[in-house]
């Protein structure tokens, strides 16, 4: 009802073109989701994207005529309810290969394959040394993760509750929304959540997997990927729990999720942009915000690099929290305490993306040949050896150095979606860790970039001999590029580090972790807010809903 009232009011009042009810900053998946939700509620919304194209970190690149995932290569955790709310069913198609991940050991020629069906994974694990124990342990941790995941599934969609016990009915309801599914859990699982959240992924997985170093590393890696942490860093188990989420359409467990959008990740962004426009949102690209204007602690609009100003009483920013609160606003608005705390928020990016175009499908020795091999290569291909091997790669990045033996998660999207490369060529899309945005010695110049890409290809060559000679093009995006070209402060793909220390209502910080900020009318969204990065759309939807509730309260 209120939405209709709002809509009617918006239609009646004559408005300058350069004003809106809400300005959404950032045209990535979260910005687009937020704009669509706002417009759907009848709110006049303008979305501003600095880059020439929409999609943010969910883009499809064209490499010599082949479509490649520019950054994110899977969209496994996109919230089903967002897809439903925005009516995306007809416009984007998601595919989940049966194989979730395949880990060829870089030295001994063995491999592990994990499937969507945990029983099938367990059957394969049984063939390994200590296999009986390991398979049983895998089923146990998988079951645990699925049950806990079912809880987290329910708390991703909503504003995390206040820790003050709630000052309003809405806050108490939010608290209830978090508590109710918790009290529904079996006591054993409830106790485990409260114990596991602050743990390191390697301690958590290590309680189950005790005699298989490679599997232990493969599972615990899910807690460290994309972040400046190692699997031994406390708080990484929390990241794993989110990754293991189970729900309708998405299904994680210990193996994690592998879901791709047909047509590339950009197809999802296009569908979202169409939905937003369909609901009436205005979307502008090449529109870089340089300031959020405010008066007496109340948002008044946004100033663009072009000199143009757009007036709006509300701004929802999906840019990273440091850009939003430190760069676009001055100290008078944010205050010294918040600035100090936010500056120390961890946002150092260590993850790069290397896309490799190959003339034909490379042979991964451990996968074998033929149909069976092709099936295994449809999942994420994880190249790592042990927990300490990952830690060693991480250690280098702490001192501004590039790992000598980086950890790689590759995906061959062209195998899952042949329409991306009609001529039999393939893209090997590699998420590579660890290389910091700022190097201690030297710069991210052409020489450094080339030697880094070479070292990744060397790693691939260990498990897929001959791949080097198949390569016809390479595309590398480093954390420095993420900072310069995507505007992510620190070059972090998830805006701020994920883990228990920057989690739920304290993501990015306690006090600004519930989408609202101390600046009236400014809402924070994007990967730097609950429930974090990955192509989920949840931060965008949750923040938009929080803003809509505020608007309705103001209208009443």
């Amino acid at each position, binding site marked *: 009802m209120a939405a209709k009232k709002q809509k009617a009011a918006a239609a009646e009042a004559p408005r300058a073109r350069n004003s809106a009810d809400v300005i959404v900053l950032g045209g990535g998946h979260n910005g687009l989701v937020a704009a669509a939700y706002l417009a759907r509620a009848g709110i006049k919304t303008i979305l501003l994207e600095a880059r020439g194209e929409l999609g943010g970190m969910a883009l499809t690149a064209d490499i010599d005529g082949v479509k490649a995932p520019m950054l994110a290569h899977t969209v496994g955790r996109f919230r089903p309810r967002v897809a439903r709310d925005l009516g995306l069913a007809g416009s984007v198609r998601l595919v989940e290969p049966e194989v979730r991940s395949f880990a060829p050991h870089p030295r001994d020629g063995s491999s592990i394959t994990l499937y969507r069906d945990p029983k099938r994974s367990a059957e394969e694990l049984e063939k390994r040394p200590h296999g009986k124990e390991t398979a049983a342990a895998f089923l146990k941790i998988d079951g645990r993760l699925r049950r806990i995941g079912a809880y987290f599934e329910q708390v991703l969609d909503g504003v995390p509750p206040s*820790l*003050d*016990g709630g000052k309003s009915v809405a806050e108490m309801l939010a608290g209830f929304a978090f508590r109710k599914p918790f009290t529904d859990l079996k*006591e*054993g699982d*409830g*106790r*485990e959540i*409260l*114990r*596991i*959240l*602050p*743990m390191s992924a390697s*301690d958590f997985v290590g*309680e189950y997997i005790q005699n298989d170093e490679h599997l232990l590393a493969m599972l615990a890696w899910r807690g460290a990927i994309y972040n400046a*942490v190692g699997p*031994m*860093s*406390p*708080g990484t188990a929390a990241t794993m729990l989110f990754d293991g989420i189970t729900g309708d359409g998405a299904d994680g467990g210990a193996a994690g999720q592998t879901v791709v959008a047909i047509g590339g990740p950009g197809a999802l962004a296009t569908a979202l942009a169409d939905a937003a426009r369909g609901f009436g949102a205005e979307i502008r690209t090449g529109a870089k915000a340089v300031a959020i204007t405010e008066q007496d602690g109340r948002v008044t609009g946004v100033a663009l690099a072009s000199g143009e100003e757009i007036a709006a009483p509300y701004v929802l920013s999906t840019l990273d929290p440091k850009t939003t609160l430190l760069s676009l606003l001055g100290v008078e608005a944010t205050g010294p*305490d918040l600035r*100090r*705390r936010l*500056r*120390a928020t*961890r946002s150092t990016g260590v993850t790069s993306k290397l896309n490799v175009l190959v003339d034909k499908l490379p042979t991964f020795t451990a996968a074998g040949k033929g149909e069976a091999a092709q099936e295994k290569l449809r999942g994420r291909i994880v190249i790592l050896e042990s927990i*300490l091997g990952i*830690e*060693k790669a991480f*250690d280098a990045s*702490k*001192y501004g150095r590039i790992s000598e033996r980086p950890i790689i998660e590759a995906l061959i999207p062209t195998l899952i979606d042949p329409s991306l490369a009609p001529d039999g060529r393939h893209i090997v899309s590699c998420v590579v860790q660890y290389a910091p945005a700022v190097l201690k010695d030297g710069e991210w110049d052409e020489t450094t970039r080339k030697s880094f890409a070479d070292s990744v290809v060397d790693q691939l060559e260990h498990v897929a001999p001959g791949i080097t000679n198949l390569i016809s093009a390479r595309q590398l995006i480093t954390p420095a590029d993420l900072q310069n070209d995507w505007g992510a402060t620190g070059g972090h793909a998830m805006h701020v580090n994920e*883990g*228990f*220390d*920057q*989690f739920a209502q*304290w993501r990015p*910080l*306690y*006090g600004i972790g519930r989408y609202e900020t101390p600046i009236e009318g400014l809402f924070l969204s994007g990967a730097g807010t609950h429930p974090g990065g990955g192509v989920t759309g949840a931060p965008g939807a949750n923040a938009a809903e929080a803003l809509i509730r505020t608007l309705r309260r103001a209208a009443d």
Partner: protein
Amino acid sequence: AKHGLQMAPSVGTYTAHWDGYLDRRTDHADTIREIRKWSHKDADNYDDFKQTVNDITRFIRPAIDIPAPDPYGDPHEWLDYAGLAKDFGHLPLRTKGALLDLITGSAYDFLSRWFEGEPLVATMSASGIIGTFLGIKSPGTGMVFLHHYFGEIDGSFREWALPQGGTGAVATAIANAARFHGATTRTDAPVKQILLKGDRAIGVVLESGEEIHADTVVSAADARHTFLDMLPAGSLPNDFERAIRNFKFRGSSAKVNFALDGLPTFTAAPPGNGHLMGTVSISPSPDYMEKAYDDAKHGHPSHRPFLDMLIPTLVDPSMAPPGKHVATAFVQYAPHKLAPEHGTWDDIKESFGDLVVDTISEFAPDFRNKIVGRQIMTPLDLERTIGLTEGNIFQGEILVQQMAFNRPVSGWARYKTPIKDYWLASSSAHPGGGIMAAPGRLAALEILKSKAGDD
């Protein structure tokens, strides 16, 4: 001082650095001046930092004296905490935020909110790693940092003190108090096993074979000894036993004591010996600290360890002949679990001692020549001689997941155990290690309460 305990407040901390030093004493203005040498910003922020930490400590401190409420426990367990929860709501946002930052984050990140000077950040962040198998930049070390700020002497927070006559004097004074009230204490009486009758503890058997029967048995040994070593196999429920096996002990520190025939001369130091009266810290920079952890993570003793050294003979000259001194160094990291190439701690004990000497001599070149004797306590020695599992000085790591209602096992954090009349009163229980004696007190109160209920 009824039972003979005199506490002398710690006089300060001197941090050696390659390009100078940081000498913080008790005098506030002097401390600010010292900090300003390294960073103006740090000096300007110092009072705000102290205020924030004091506010947090004042808020959280009562929790140490209350048993941890269980999330699935009787609601009355939470009554004691109701006030605390209400107080939390009333804290200013900056204090709430800082508390959350500490509970979930790293000591380094927390301190970086105020400070940038290398020796200041490094030395202060050391409070986050003491006895812990984590680095200053690992999330979770904020919790250890907070734990250290629980220290309270005569009502003033975060006042670390040195008991006269060494920390052993604390034990002596407590023993005197116990005997005064009628307790019998017996030394050289190692317990072999707890005597059970059905699911109930009825006494203990000593190594000597002697049996002592009792209504109640209270163990102040760590959780692994208490449950896995001293109970007959199969006496515990499976889930509980598995949880105890998962309780982490990873000891990470060693102790090295030196007999010296004179005081060492630090290359960069103020005139006089005042800087040697308190803690002498080798923690020159955050990277130095983090690299020390990297080594340990991979199973090596730190090639350049962090160390805190005290020279107690400067405070209490009666401890050594005139002109002679004793220096006692807490050294980290000395990981209990070594990489295979090192063999055992017995194999590398002396080379580790040399490494400690090299580390101190880097900042005080004549230290090496003043040594007339040394004694090394490796994590293995701590385990064998004091009975600390894996040499962990807190009887279980101070990790967020091993605190409060999870210490040592979720559902069993209130000193009771699955064995009737068998209680846990060690630092493996809430609120954990450090010479606070809180677990012992809280356990005793719970036992008394339970006895009163029986009548």
